[in-house]
């Protein structure tokens, strides 16, 4: 059964590998007659993948400081029941090598189960629901950015059109559509630049609950990874208040790999 679910931001799509079909030149895609909500649903559907294996480097850059790099392997899968599973294992720097995060988001559950294995302690701990404004591994990615959200959690409106890098984009604005989302999400508003040709989200602007700009995200090095899905291999997230930025670079990608059955089990957290 197909799940019509918004995979959150381009960030989550990159990290979790959800796939949507890209139909270049297909009539109807990005046509003026589509409203913003439809466009976002289509974008979500086009770029979804069943599974994805990535090697990623996060570069955490402080203004005036030396960048700090973390590299990790990310595995994502949507299983037969529709549960989304994610495993991220850090492989550098040496002091965090082997640290592994496991996230399992079953259908119908309000929150994902998250487990963290710290090799230095040889222990696994279940993480409680994080404040969605907390930073993921001290980067500019917030836990909100990694959270699975339904497309209809946000109400989108088309605000215009703009060219980015010579390519026409829809400019879409989204605000929390449900009270629970308005309460939990640290964002009061998001702006999304959606390429008209492939409905790929290539730029985002995030606003806090007082509608002040807090972050921006720029995707570049677009790569077609399947018949329909595209990915941005480099993503730059800038914290506008902290003057800090995170550059997420995909070093390698495997689309729809065959993963061992226990890849997303707790006992496999400690690794081989």
């Amino acid at each position: 059964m197909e799940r019509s679910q918004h995979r959150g931001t381009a960030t989550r799509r990159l990290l979790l590998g959800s796939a949507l079909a890209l139909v270049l030149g297909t009539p109807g895609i990005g046509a003026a007659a589509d409203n913003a909500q439809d466009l976002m649903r289509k974008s979500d559907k086009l770029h979804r993948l069943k599974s994805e294996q990535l090697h990623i480097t996060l570069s955490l850059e402080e203004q005036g400081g030396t960048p700090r790099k973390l590299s990790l392997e990310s595995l994502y899968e949507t299983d037969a029941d529709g549960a989304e599973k994610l495993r991220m294992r850090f492989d550098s720097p040496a002091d965090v090598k082997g640290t592994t995060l496991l996230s399992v988001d079953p259908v119908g559950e309000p929150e994902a189960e998250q487990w963290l294995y710290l090799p230095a302690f040889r222990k696994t701990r279940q993480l409680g629901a994080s404040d969605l404004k907390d930073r993921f591994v001290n980067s500019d990615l917030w836990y909100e950015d990694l959270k699975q959200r339904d497309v209809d959690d946000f109400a989108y409106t088309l605000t215009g059109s703009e060219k980015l890098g010579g390519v026409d984009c829809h400019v879409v604005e989204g605000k929390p559509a449900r009270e629970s989302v308005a309460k939990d999400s640290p964002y009061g508003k998001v702006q999304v630049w959606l390429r008209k040709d492939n409905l790929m989200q290539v730029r985002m602007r995030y606003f806090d609950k007082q509608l002040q700009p807090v972050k921006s995200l720029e995707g570049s090095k677009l790569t077609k990874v399947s018949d329909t899905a595209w990915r941005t291999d480099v993503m730059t997230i800038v914290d506008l208040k902290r003057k800090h930025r995170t550059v997420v670079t995909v070093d390698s990608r495997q689309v729809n790999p065959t993963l061992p059955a226990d890849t997303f089990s707790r006992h496999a957290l400690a690794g081989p």
Partner: protein
Amino acid sequence: MMTPRSRVERVAAWMVTHPKTLLFVLLAIIAVSASALPRLKMQAGFEALTDRTLPEQRVLDTVVERFVGDNLIVLAYEADDIFSRPALETVYGLSEDLQGLTIKHPDGAEVRPVARVDSLTHVKDVVGADLSFRAEPLVPQPVPQDAAALAHIRERALFNPLISEGLLSPQDPKLAMVVVRLIPDLSDDDNTATVAKVQALVEKAKATGGVKAFYVTGTPTILAELGAFMQRDLNVFIPALMISMFVLLLVCLRRLAGAVLAFVNMMVALVAGLAMFPLLGRSMTNWSVIVAPVVLVLSTALLIHFLSELAHHAKEHGGREVVEATLAELLIPATMCEFTTIIGFGSIAVSNMPALRDFGITSALAIVAVFLTTMTTVTLAALWKPPSFWVAPGSLGVSPFFTKWVGRYTAAVQRRPLPILLLSIVLLVLGAAGIPRIYTDSNLQENLGHATPVRAATELVDNRLGGASALVISLKHEKEGHFLEPEALQRVEALEEFLRKDLNAKVVTSPADYVKLMHRGFFGDDPKEYRLPETREQTAQLLLLNGDDSFAEYLDPSRGWARVVVRYNEHSVAKQNVIFDQVDAYLVKHFPASDGYAAVATGDNRMLVNTIDRLVQSQMGSLGLAFILIFGPIFIVLRSVRAGLFSIPSNIWPVIVILGVMGWIGVPLNEATSMIASIALGIVVDDTIHFLEYFRSRLSEHDDRERALRETMLVKGAGVSISTLVFTMGFGVLMLSQFPLVSWFGLLTALAILLGMVSEMLVLPPLLAFTRTRLGVPVRTPESHPAGDTVPSLPGSGA
């Protein structure tokens, strides 16, 4: 019309024959000043107090840029139960309002001055259980209703040292606080607006009834309060002084017109003097508020001199000649007097504190403006109406009582000058003996008026919430990731231990505390696990769990630069310097450069303390400069080295004695009292100039040294008395200030001026009599003064 002989007489003649030009000049000054005055701004902020070019300031700026500033508003609050639902809901609502606080500029731009709010409802706790770990808000939303849940919140708060130390009182369970961090580099106007809005939000929160009382303090609040003091001071000084001067002149001149002239003159001088601030692009600070009474007093003193000379010359001349003769007599000594006063204030400009530098320059130029406006105003008035219109004949003369007293004293001086001289030396030595007792100190809390809410709030935070003063220790290592090493964190932990035990610091926060908290949480909140990890890997991996921004205030993302914050309850500059010295010594020993560290104790508070120290040193240095700049020209104007030398003792005497008095009564040298010597010197020297100049002029008239001394004592003695009274009242009104620094400054400066009068009587006349000096005036010969020359008689002298 008199035949002009000297340059001064030519200037006097020009002034008298060009009243329209004078009027034009006066009106132009008034017009320019009046148009500038609406732009006069008050500034009570840090910028006025700190020198941003100093290396240590740049170090602090770097730390602030990398981490956060320590510009905090502290809201202490009291409730019967701070963990009750009403109290927590009140604090939650207030914290939310504070986070969303905005201030609007006149151009419509909005500023959000609050960077962060920490309170019981806006802080995270780290909670560990057997197999789980989470960082979650201490107080869930909505605030729980049941007693068990609220008790659990209390238990968690007390279990978390970062919360219990940072937000709760160790002595009083009914006290807690909300800490509001403002964005760095907030302008003074925005600071004042922010404080006003915070106080409004506090009032709104109080009205909910969940909390009994709020106490608002912190540097931004203190600065806003100082700004309000300034405004209140001005509202008191100016009317008080103008009324008292008016009454004084009414009594002295015995003419309402004269008193009104003085009033008008004061208004004009005030406008012209204060306009110097906006014209020079400067703002008025807590120190430069002194300029207002100074210009009022100087304009009045100059007016009294002018009218006194006018009345004197009216006996011998008529019509315009009276004014011309007065100007010819007065221009040089008046110019010299204003010049020395300008130097006295202007020497303050050597200060490295921007507020005092500006004060020195602006007040010096204000005095120039006062001189110009007063000379033109009274000249025009004298040309318009005869002297008797402005001053009753004989009113500024000497009374029979004064004549008799001065006569006796002068006779005693001339008969036995040595004992009187010795007496003055004994008093000088007694005074000087107090100088070694002088110490430098300023107490930032004492600068707040007694019984003000801010003072009470600061004392409460000092005594029951860990202290309102903060020191920031920056520990930078050359290697990235250094503070992941157990050894490095152990050094930080040892530093905390030292700060708590040896320096009695109440609240210390460092990255080590966060790491220990996370370690304990990871191990299921086992109290034994509130310790540092054993390996670098353990620390690095634990820190991956932390997503809260507050940790970034203590360890930068590279993990090579740590920040430790110490709160303490000391406000005395001297005592804080002792603390800083101890911390510096510890850092040199335990975080040496040889181990790759660049460790420094800094913070806004330390910058202020350092600035005040340097300021006091430079002010005392400026005294030497003032001495050279004041006495140098006196030698030139008196046209005699001998006369110049004689001007020194009677002016050094009050400066040494006032400094000695400060030492004896325990008044420290601080940012205000260190200015007294320079300013007093610039003022007291005026009378000496008048005295010596008059003595020499009388001596050259009749060649009788004793008679010249007697006449000078009588005429100039009266003048000294009146001008001393004017200056003493002028500076004395500063004692009404709500800003203790200004109040002490007023008292001591008034006393210094009184001592100046004492020395004019006690030092100079005996010195002149004892040495039998002619101050360079040549002996009269029959050729230089043919027989038949009449010697004018002295009014009231009977001669």
